[in-house]
């Protein structure tokens, strides 16, 4: 309904209104098997190959709870400072949709496994970092649905499609849903708080090892609730923007929804309680289904499952397995490495914190560890569409490259090629250097021969330099670097060149 022109500028909007946020996050747990059967959960398998009577919901089949999923949920709850229910049940959420094998989803309703927690998140402001406490309403377990692909039609949605395909590999994959209490008092920082919260959740889950949170594979999905109210007034009607699947999108979804609702409210309109669809390409959302008439899911306790009743001992045992939590870890490493918040953030954003930490522990120079893991290696991972952690680069290899740079055998450009070779499986550092012939050419006579060749090829440039135009030297240095395939030290080439021509800087 709303289009780009009926929005109010963000700052203008928040000069008038106060935002209230609420975020529901669904994350696929990293268990080897599904929530209620033993089917594999690997991403990317051929459609409908990881299915059985249980996750297909065939008549007569019955669910059995995956203990590891319960364990992961409790650990997540503990890390979020939640209380753990001594006794709770699964519930059926009933609705018809072809991606649901049973036409109900096994979830939890009024008896979540974990409840009443919080997560502190840090947001950068002009006045330095600011901490917000995001209160957690609940953390519960449920099963994922299948995945629909709509063919034909123009909207990519089920309505108007010529036909639709269903892949039930995803059906029954364990999800945890983490629901915040209303987040108030963020003001203009609302989009950043939302983003920081989701980022913190992601880091927490990775640190706990309960999920590898591959957002690009849709393993973390957020529903973002936003409402606006006048200062001191009651909270406004909220909208729910569904399936926001990246950190950047979370930020943008909050931002654009604040602008949209402000426009509705300032023109005397009424915000409709509805779900909205977020569009990655435009950063805006469009109206989905109205929730004015709340859908009735007819929840009732799942009679095919027995209650989950974690004992005190088990909960304490799980508490003992919690690793150092990300916020504490970041503070510790930042202090230990003596770096600023910004540089730390760069490392965190690159997903390199653990790798850098490990490299330093393995004796790699701290600055070098940070430089390689957030720079060249991150670029290579990105180019190859790999996770940083998937790169087959060891601390010993980084150390060796550093040694070769230090003694002048390699320069940075060559070092990159060395890593490229290592990752391409061409062998260890020295093997790649030898195999690709990557040693720095430091032999003066061969450099001088290359210089003479370049000068002969560009006599006009040579003349300019002799005439005192030192800045023209770059063309000759470039030519020499080219003929030596980058294996020369450019500064040295320049010095030799000027010496050859009897010119000084």
């Amino acid at each position, binding site marked *: 309904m709303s289009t780009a022109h009926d929005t109010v500028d963000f700052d203008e909007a928040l000069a008038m209104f106060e935002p209230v946020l609420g975020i529901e996050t669904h994350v696929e747990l990293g268990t080897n098997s599904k929530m209620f059967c033993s089917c594999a959960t690997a991403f990317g398998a051929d459609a409908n190959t990881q299915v059985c*009577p249980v996750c*297909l*919901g*065939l*008549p*007569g*089949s*019955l*669910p*059995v*709870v995956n203990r590891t999923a319960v364990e992961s949920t409790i650990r997540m709850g503990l890390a979020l400072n939640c209380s753990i229910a001594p006794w709770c049940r699964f519930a*059926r959420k*009933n609705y*018809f949709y*072809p991606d649901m*094998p*049973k*036409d*109900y989803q096994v979830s939890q309703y009024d008896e979540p496994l974990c409840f009443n927690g919080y997560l502190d998140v840090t947001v950068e402001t002009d006045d330095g970092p600011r901490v917000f406490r995001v209160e957690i309403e609940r953390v519960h377990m449920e099963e994922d649905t299948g995945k629909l692909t709509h063919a034909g039609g123009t909207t990519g949605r*089920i*309505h108007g499609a010529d036909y*639709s395909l*269903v892949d039930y590999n995803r059906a029954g994959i364990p999800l945890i849903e983490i629901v915040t209490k209303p987040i108030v008092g963020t003001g203009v920082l609302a989009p950043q708080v939302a983003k920081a919260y989701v980022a913190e959740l992601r880091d927490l889950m990775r640190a706990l090892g309960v999920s590898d949170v591959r957002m690009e594979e849709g393993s973390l999905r957020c529903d973002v609730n936003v409402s606006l109210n006048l200062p001191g007034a009651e909270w406004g009607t909220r909208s729910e923007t569904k399936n926001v699947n990246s950190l950047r999108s979370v930020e943008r979804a909050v931002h654009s929804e604040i602008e949209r609702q402000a426009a509705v409210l300032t023109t005397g309109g009424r915000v409709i309680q509805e779900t909205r669809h977020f569009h990655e390409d435009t950063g805006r959302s469009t109206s989905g289904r109205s929730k004015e008439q*709340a859908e*009735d899911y*007819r*929840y*009732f306790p799942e*009679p*095919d*499952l*027995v209650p989950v009743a974690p004992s005190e001992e088990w909960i304490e045992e799980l508490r003992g397995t919690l690793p150092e939590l990300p916020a504490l870890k970041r503070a510790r490493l930042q202090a230990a490495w003596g770096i600023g918040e910004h540089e730390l953030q760069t490392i965190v954003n690159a997903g390199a914190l653990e790798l850098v930490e490990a490299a330093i522990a393995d004796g790699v120079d701290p600055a070098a560890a940070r430089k390689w893991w957030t720079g060249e290696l991150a670029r290579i991972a990105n180019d190859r569409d790999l996770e940083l952690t998937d790169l087959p680069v060891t601390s010993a290899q980084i150390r060796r490259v550093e040694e070769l740079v230090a003694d002048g055998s390699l320069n940075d450009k060559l070092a990159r090629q060395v890593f490229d070779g290592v990752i391409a499986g061409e062998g260890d550092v020295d093997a790649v250097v030898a195999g690709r012939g990557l040693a720095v050419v430091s032999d003066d006579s061969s450099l001088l021969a290359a210089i003479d060749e370049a000068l002969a090829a560009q006599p006009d440039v040579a003349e300019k330099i002799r005439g005192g135009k030192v800045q023209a030297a770059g063309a000759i240095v470039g030519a020499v670097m080219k003929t030596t395939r980058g294996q020369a030290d450019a500064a040295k080439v320049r010095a030799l060149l000027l010496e050859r021509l009897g010119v000084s800087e």
Partner: protein
Amino acid sequence: MAAMEGDLVRQEAAVLARAIAEGEVSAEEVTRAHLDRIDAVDERVHAFLQITGDAALEAARAVDRKRSEGIPLGPLAGVPIAVKDVLTMRGVPTTCGSRVLEGWRPPYDSAVVERLRAADMIMLGKTNMDEFAMGSSTEHSAYGPTHNPWDLDRIPGGSGGGSAAALAAFEAPLAIGSDTGGSIRQPAAVTGTVGVKPTYGGVSRYGLIALASSLDQAGPCARTVMDTALLHAAIAGHDARDSTSIDAPVQDVVAAAKRGDVRGMRIGLVKELGGDGYQAGVSQRFNEAVEILTSLGAEVIEVSCPNFEYALAAYYLILPSEASSNLARFDGMRYGLRVGDDGQHSVEEVMALTREAGFGAEVKRRIMIGTYALSSGYYDAYYGQAQKVRTLITRDFNAAFEKVDVLISPTAPTTAFKIGDKVDDPIAMYLNDIATIPVNLAGNTAMSLPVGLAPEDGLPVGLQIMAPPMADDRLYLVGSALEEALVDRWGHLLIEEAPEL
């Protein structure tokens, strides 16, 4: 054993098993005899929806081979059995008596079928039932009613009328039923056969197509208490695939059936299950059985279970609620019937058209009741309240079992009624299960066994024995003692009085 041959179909399972084990008769001969009997009578009885003759003969020959090779066989090896069409059997059409599942061949065996196979038993086919086990007469089967072998114009009970009729018509010596509110016991009562609803969780529900998950329980059906015990032992036991399955050893029901002793036992007569509303002949035969139990040395006292009055009402909220959810999956998307898939209808329309065409009136009625009862705003008043009643009924049982070892009542208020008599009156139909429903609500175990023919119509009357959860052996102690005394009195099993078909 040529002498036995003519009688093969009238033999007890225990006798057949022994004869097969001792080589007096082959499993193949026994199977053929039953398939021939089915051929001869099932056109009139219609106990079976599906006859798996070739597979049965093949399985029988495999048993004979095993025996000849000296491989040890189980206590029921080679004995034929009929399986209610509510249990999945790999590759064999499984319909639950519904059009919506027509043509569906499950890719997996239910736990019960697995155990029957493991016991080297011979599955003859799938038996008729009320659609999705909703009914007390088998008239709600989409594939036509089953007829009571005692009187072909009468119902064989339901929902497991097919299994009970197969026993009474000597088409199979053993059968599997499922009991959500009496679907094993009431058909047993009206066909003069024996049936047990085991303790909830006693027999795995894996592969038992759910009607109401918290009430459903598969169980054994036979013509004698001992045969029922042998089958009970074969199918009971823990199964990790059913979360509600009890992880504890099964009581020795076979030993209890062998012992058959009520001396010193306290037996409670449930005051609320009898008297007004029970057919005179039913009450008469029941009272005679009570006298026998007393004469055998039991102490029979009257026990009150005041909340049983509300059992039927609670049951008809809990069952439809669970069923409305359990039956949601029959939407035409993945298996079974699909209606309206012509490129013109939306997915919702195809689902609606499929369910409209695929479900019968009784199923639709219960889905609508259940959908309503679970609705927001009504949940507490209906489903929530019904669960409270359920708790009260369980407390009634607990209190009663502090005073007595088992409870007894007539199994059903009447003998078999005429086909068509109650099919248009759901409440009258529901009242058939008034005495059997409390047991399902509490998760107890119960047996129905024949105690005679009602004088007014000459049709079988059943007596129900109820025991606490995980005390299934008590049913067999009492049932076996009573059966022995009755057989002594009659000179034969009651089923021998069934008319020739």
